[in-house]
């Protein structure tokens, strides 16, 4: 979502809900009342138990201060985060396994993990130290008093929720070891989650300008859940629900009216997905008195994901998104039911049928993971029919399909917008072309979140630059960074399945561009891309197309490219074919093998020295 397309829609405010007196007290609250039982399904159980058994034989990793400090010293996140995650994953697996078996063989390990996590000086990640609310100074957690108010980031929230799930499922067993364990969980959840949530001014809440993203939904969901399970004080429970409603409204208000997720499809599950999970908790915590699922804005946010699906697990992957996402189909079905969207439901069912029960959704919240595992597996789905033309007017994303059946014919997506989006790449005008559900022209995705990727080094990498997003260059100059660098004059013609945008404004003045017009269409079994550049004076104009396989020259003006397609261009342009690899080390580390199952990508460059040039591409 850009900065100028806020919906300003606040569903809870609109509903004028009165929460006081409606929140269910600690002793009567029963979470996940819609689930058949608080237990994994029998199909997933063996897989989780296998991992839990492995955890029994693995040591709990230490988290010494030097690892906390490591990120500041090296810029590497994984040295700290990997062992940090191992602790949580061990706990989650052992908790699910023990609550399924109830034989007691995991309970000592669970108690060890709980105490190890409770003993951690902070639950906030070192990589989140640049946030002003983090309890850090000079990379050492600034916590030394038991009652000290901690910061609250994604990781503090998820830690609280993981402990809360263990407590929810295994309190009796833990009490047998000692009532101290759950008392200490409750205390620390209050100090590290509920209290900061209620009393601190965090930027991610969207309360202080600057917008909000998946942080607000994720943290709100996790804190709500942990508070719902552990907090005995009814006033605190009420305050937490009311605060959550306000933050969730901030999220909805900042979200664009068209429902598109500017962080890309793989953040969708963490943004609108967590949002709906939080709505569900509020619904449960108030005994059904506070519900907003039926709001059209909620539905738009949710339906975005089915529109962005190309075919199978391929999604349009603008920004930092990965091209293939194993989306939690069961969750999608649940959201579709909440917002009453048959289209989303059938997409969810297709994804659910593709889910392997062995897959544990590490990237999901513990709340969603648990709901997913407690829901029966799905093995069959009906074919999904997609709309042939979709336009997201706020984020300027166009989706065009040759066929309603996702696995047939051409799929083309392009995006305008600005160069100041969340997880931004310099990609105003980026192009994605698939055929038969398989990639032809691609958005490259990203490397690891290392080495100041979230800082001044971000745009040193090839895969964040516009020339590697199939956008032309003039005199080698890339697009500029910032909200001012944007597309304009976007025209979407659904009937003719054509989209046109003016991209010249995305470049800095020194590029000397008068206009750069990109037109894409799908027609007559062909994908057509026409790029027209007008410069102030004679310039080196390059038209770039990032493709997945090495193009072979068939004849002048005709290339054989991926998926057996032909790439036809006007021969007044000079052809160059470039191999694309990581060269600027250690910053560039895009994982070609993992993302694209290739050793490299290729770029078709069509050049002309002139004041005006046009590339007319047909792929068939």
């Amino acid at each position, binding site marked *: 979502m850009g900065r100028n397309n806020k919906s300003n829609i606040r569903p809870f405010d609109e509903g004028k809900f009165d929460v006081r007196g409606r929140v269910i007290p600690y002793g009567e609250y029963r979470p996940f009342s819609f689930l058949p039982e608080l237990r994994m399904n029998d199909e997933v159980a063996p897989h989780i138990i296998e991992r839990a058994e492995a955890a029994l034989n693995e*040591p*709990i990793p*230490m988290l*010494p*201060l*030097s690892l906390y*400090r490591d990120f500041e010293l090296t810029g590497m996140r994984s040295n700290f985060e990997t062992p940090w995650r191992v602790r949580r994953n061990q706990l989650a697996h052992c908790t699910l396994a023990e609550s399924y078996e109830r034989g007691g063989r995991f309970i*000592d*390990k669970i*108690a*060890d993990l*709980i*105490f*190890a996590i*409770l*003993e*951690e*000086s902070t639950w906030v990640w070192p990589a989140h130290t640049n946030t002003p609310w983090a309890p850090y*100074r*000079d*990379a*050492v*957690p*600034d*916590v*030394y*008093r*038991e*009652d000290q108010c901690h910061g609250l980031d994604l990781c503090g929230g998820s830690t609280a929720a993981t402990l809360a799930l263990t407590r929810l499922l295994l309190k009796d067993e833990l009490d047998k*070891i*000692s*009532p*101290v*364990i759950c*008392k*200490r969980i*409750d*205390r*620390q959840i209050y100090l590290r989650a509920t209290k900061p949530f209620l009393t601190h001014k965090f930027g991610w809440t969207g309360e202080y300008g600057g917008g909000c993203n998946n942080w607000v939904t994720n943290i709100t969901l996790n804190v709500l859940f942990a508070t719902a399970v552990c907090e005995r004080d009814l006033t605190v429970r009420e305050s937490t629900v009311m605060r959550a409603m306000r933050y969730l409204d901030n999220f909805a208000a900042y979200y664009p009216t068209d429902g598109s997720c500017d962080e890309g499809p793989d953040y969708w599950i963490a943004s609108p997905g967590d949002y709906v999970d939080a709505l569900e908790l509020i619904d449960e915590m108030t005994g059904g008195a506070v519900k907003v699922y039926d709001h059209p804005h909620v539905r738009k946010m949710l339906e975005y994901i089915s529109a962005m699906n190309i075919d199978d697990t391929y999604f349009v992957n603008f920004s930092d998104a990965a091209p293939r996402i194993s989306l939690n189909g069961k969750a999608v079905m649940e959201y579709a039911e909440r917002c009453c969207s048959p289209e989303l439901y059938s997409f969810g069912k297709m994804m659910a049928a593709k889910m392997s029960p062995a897959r544990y959704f590490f990237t999901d919240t513990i709340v969603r993971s648990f709901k997913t595992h407690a829901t029966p597996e799905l093995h069959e789905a009906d074919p999904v029919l997609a709309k042939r033309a979709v336009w997201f007017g706020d984020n300027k994303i166009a989706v065009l399909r040759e066929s309603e059946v996702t696995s047939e014919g051409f799929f083309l997506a392009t995006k305008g917008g600005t160069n100041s989006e969340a997880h931004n790449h310099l990609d105003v005008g980026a192009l994605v072309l698939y055929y038969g559900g398989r990639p032809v022209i691609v958005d490259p995705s990203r490397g690891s979140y290392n080495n100041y990727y979230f800082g001044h080094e971000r745009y040193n990498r090839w895969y964040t630059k516009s020339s590697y997003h199939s956008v032309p260059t003039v005199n080698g100059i890339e697009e500029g960074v910032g909200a001012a660098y944007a597309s304009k004059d976007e025209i979407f013609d659904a009937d003719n399945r054509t989209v046109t945008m003016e991209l010249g404004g995305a470049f800095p003045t020194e590029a000397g561009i008068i206009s750069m017009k990109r037109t894409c269409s799908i027609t007559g079994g062909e994908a057509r891309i026409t790029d027209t550049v007008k410069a102030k004076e004679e310039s080196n104009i390059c038209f770039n197309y990032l493709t997945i396989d090495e193009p072979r020259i068939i004849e002048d003006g005709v290339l054989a490219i991926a998926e057996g397609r032909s790439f036809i261009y006007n021969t007044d342009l000079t052809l160059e074919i470039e191999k694309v690899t990581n060269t600027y080390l250690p910053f560039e580390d895009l994982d070609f093998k993992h993302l694209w199952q290739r050793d490299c990508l290729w770029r078709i460059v069509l050049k002309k020295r002139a004041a005006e040039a046009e590339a007319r591409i047909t792929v068939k």
Partner: protein
Amino acid sequence: MGQNNRSNIRIFEERGIRAEGLVLPKEKFVFFRDVKEKKITKEFGEVIMKGAEEALASEIPFLPLSLYRDFKKTGIRSNFEPAHHKRRRMLSVMTFAEVYEGKGRFIEKILDIAWAMLEESTWILPAHFNNPGATEHSVPNVYKDEQPHGLDIYACNACSHLAMVYYFLGDKLDEISPVIKKRIEHAVYQRGVRPLLEHTFGWMGENNGVCNNWLTDIVVNVLLATAICIEDMKTREAVLDKTMHLLDNFSAYYPLDGGCDEGPGYWSAAPGDYFNCLELIEDLTDGKITIYDHPHVKNMGEYISKVNIDGKYFLNFSDAAPRLSQPGKMIMRYGEKCGSPELYSFGKMAEASNTPNLVHLLYNPYISYREMITPEIHEAEKVIAKRAVWLGDSKIAVLRESEITSEGFFLAMKGGTNAEAHNHIDVGVIVLFHSGKPIFIDPSHGSYNNGYFGKERYIRWYTKSSGHSIPTVNGYEERAGLEYASRDEVFDEENMTVSMELGGAFPEEAGILTFRRTCQIAEGEARITDTVKLKAEGDVRFNYLTLDEPKLIEPGKLEIAEGRTLTYNPELEFVAERVENVNLPYEDLAIERLWGRPCLWRIVLLAHGTEAEARITVK
């Protein structure tokens, strides 16, 4: 010391000493004000560097909750404690390595361990979880705001270990982050200072006056950490006042004769730490508070030289080990400051046989540091011991054939009660050495496991009277309790004879009218006479615990350890019994390590009748 021989001497109180206005502020405090050159000796430096290199290459042991819970489940201390202790040892050896070497290469690991310790839920050992405020159901009981922690002999030394990091490496910590020092200050206050000031713990001796080495050990560590880490002057004064009050409890409970009823193995932790505390108070008040001149201080000190047999062998009554390395450098200072040349020369002899070591590092890094900066002693003059010593409160008699400790017979006997600290059922126990080598022994103790400090203590052979060269009468051993005691003790210095009535140490059911034991050294012989009179005809087994298998040469004559000959009145029937651990897992005396033998032996002489007497002569 039993309950009835308290000195009731309260030195600080008698002299009206108060802390107010005398305490140095934090930034002016230095330790060992009387030592000008505070440099770690080269010899110590080498030991430290070796230990520190090993620590650098070692992983920090993990302390999961299951290890804390283990003691309650299994009764075994050694599952948790080695991992816990290793953290502290690693921390301090690297801290001193950094002090010695100053290259900064240990800093990161030091920080990691310090941080890990700060993250520990409690600093109290699981074996001490009955300490108030420490636990609930074997899980560290910490979950409330600013919850007061308990305070045991390990929580206090965690304070010291961190205080030493703070003292020596504070500037380097600040370069990394000021949080670390702040967190140490806070933890020392929460886990050391506050419990000391706000709680009344059993070990303080506030309720019944009973106290032991816990008091001195805890107080010296908390006082050290306060001196280094606590800024607030009122708190500094309050800790010193409390320290002096508690030290008075300690000296008041201590017997006038200076005898340490926990045995010589605890001397360095009891009067030794008392003395360390006095030195720390001297430093903290810039010399304004000193009490070394009090005769009670001297008596408590001199005990250790009195119970030395020869070299590293000590009288090892109760839970003491037979061979002890004593902190000679500290003992020399103790002797010097309290005006005892005897203690000083014993300390020097003890130190000359020591090599630089870090045994005190775990319990008190402060004391270790003092050793590190004191020049090594390599040679000592001969120590001449008194031939006859009587500790009237503890009822301990020491007799020597020669003034030179390594020559002739050494015979010691102890009466007292069966309710002493670290008690064994041992009223009347004898220890016989020749030329500084053991013949009849007190067996020492096994591990502190499996209910040793509870109801299972006396199911072990080495805590029973029959394991202490005391007769069994009609199958009865002596019994535990204050009323089971010796009486009519007669010590004759001139004739080198001690005699005690021991019948009262046995239960009524044993049917004993009187049982008198007389020990003497005369004419190059050690003589022991045990005379038992019974209410009715019965069985008496005279027991003597010895090192080597006794060989019968002829009735009435045995060849025993050290090539000695033992003669006895031949009407008694002789039996040799092998002594080893059989009641497993409770009995675990390390016979091989303590005595260099696979097993011990008991010389048993059997008698039947209304009267029985064993007359033993060893020559």
